């Protein structure tokens, strides 16, 4: 049962991400990105990481992707101004590199073989919260600095006058 779900959501995630990088219009890409994010959230749930799954939807689907959609609509790039993709050498190299990366992933996967391990309940709100506020308190606080820098940076960048 779990295996079937894994394959369904895994397939949807890969399909969605391929569609994201291959669509011409950004808004179609965004919708497929949403699909990918959802299937990844579902995969998190399969791994019993409910907290991260919920955060995935809140932060990614609820904020980041909305922001991207907002920018796409705000720019509202005319159909003729959407960049036309032409194959270049760099792209060829990129695709080959990606293929190699995929091969490596498969090799690593096959090295470990089909080890089946029971998932420990580490993904609940309590467990993640405890880890976040004890062992990882300093990194957690540092992320807040990162966010502050991002806020200031984006405001400065998007201001009308420099």
């Amino acid at each position: 049962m779990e295996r079937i779900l894994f394959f369904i959501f895994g397939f949807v995630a890969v399909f969605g991400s391929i569609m994201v990088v291959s669509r011409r219009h950004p808004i179609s890409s965004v919708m497929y990105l949403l699909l990918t994010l959802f299937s990844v959230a579902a995969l998190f749930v399969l791994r019993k990481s409910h907290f991260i799954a919920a955060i995935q939807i809140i932060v990614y689907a609820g904020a980041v992707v909305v922001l991207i959609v907002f920018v796409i609509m705000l720019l509202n790039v005319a159909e003729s101004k959407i960049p036309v993709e032409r194959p270049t050498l760099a792209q060829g190299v990129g695709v080959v590199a990606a293929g190699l990366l995929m091969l490596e992933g498969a090799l690593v996967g096959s090295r470990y073989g089909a080890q089946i391990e029971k998932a420990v309940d580490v993904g609940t709100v309590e467990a993640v919260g405890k880890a976040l506020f004890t062992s990882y308190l300093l990194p957690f606080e540092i992320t807040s600095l990162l966010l502050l820098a991002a806020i200031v940076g984006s405001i400065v960048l998007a201001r009308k006058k420099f």
Partner: protein
Amino acid sequence: MLIDLLIVIVKIAIMLAFVLGLVPVLVWAERKGAAFIQDRMGPAKADIFGLRLAGLFHPLADALKLLFKEDFVPEDAHPLFYRLAPVFAMAPVLLTFAVVPFGDTIEIFGRKVPLQVADLNVGILYVFAFSSLTVYGIILAGWASGNKFSLLGGLRSSAQMISYEISLGLSIIGVAMVFGSLKLSDIARAQGELLFGVIPKWGVVVQPLGFILFLVSVFAESARIPFDLPEGESEIVAGFHTEYGSFKFAMFFLAEYVHVVVASGLIATLYFGGWQIPYLYADGFHLFGKVLHLPFALVVIMQVLAFVVKVLFFCWFFIWVRWTIPRFRYDQVMRLGWKVLLPLALANIFITGSVLLLFGGAKPL
């Protein structure tokens, strides 16, 4: 196994029937209530065999009319996303109700059945996650219609919803801190306790500021007046659903009212004791040290009814506010969200944390 599945399906069916069945009643209450507030008669003409029931058949007639209208796609619209948008508007709202408990755990055929579709470990976060998705319906409708007014409505709504989601989430944190859980069932159960032996420990009593913040944010999230900027009909025609007709429009309409029901259910659960009736416990009323014994079945029925009554009251509250307060201006909405609600929500968390640390017996890690 099979019977468990059956119980779950029955619960989902009850929930859907309740939420969707309430919609026509709400539409009727909205029109009739508006009329009475404005010294008018309201709908009173539609009849079945001469039976009028004060216009209760009007929503039915409207639904039939919308069903039989022509289903069209405007020329400039994006055909797929135009059709997809109403679904995006509808689905997340309906899903949200799954975690709202409507009664205590009961025993049927020797099984413990919580009166709640899904008791999730991340309860409130689930609500929050799906309520943040409702924006896609509006934003997609606005973009896919190929109409500038629709686009403006979509942009407005996306900015508004991102802004108010923050204070919505932060105001819920106060409740989660007080009751020490994210599970809505735990929160509802904990509200049956008494403060100082007399006052019910409802969310509104322990989190008055949080309640007001939540209420305002929920109004903004469901895009009801005074926050109905996305559709502001006096400025941008009808906003995101300008180009929609027929059943696709009906789905947006339905989604709006389902949103009201869901928001009422959440307000009732988080701040007004959920299914709890003050002083009523599993064995009866406990009042002034005396116990009035009641059969368990009666208690459960009373509690479910109490939840329904609370939800109905808050649905009415949404209607009531709509016909009292005028719409905000766009800059006022933004200022309220960022400059008033957000600092207040942060202050609320800080105060709650301090009080819990000083008096609540919470220990620092």
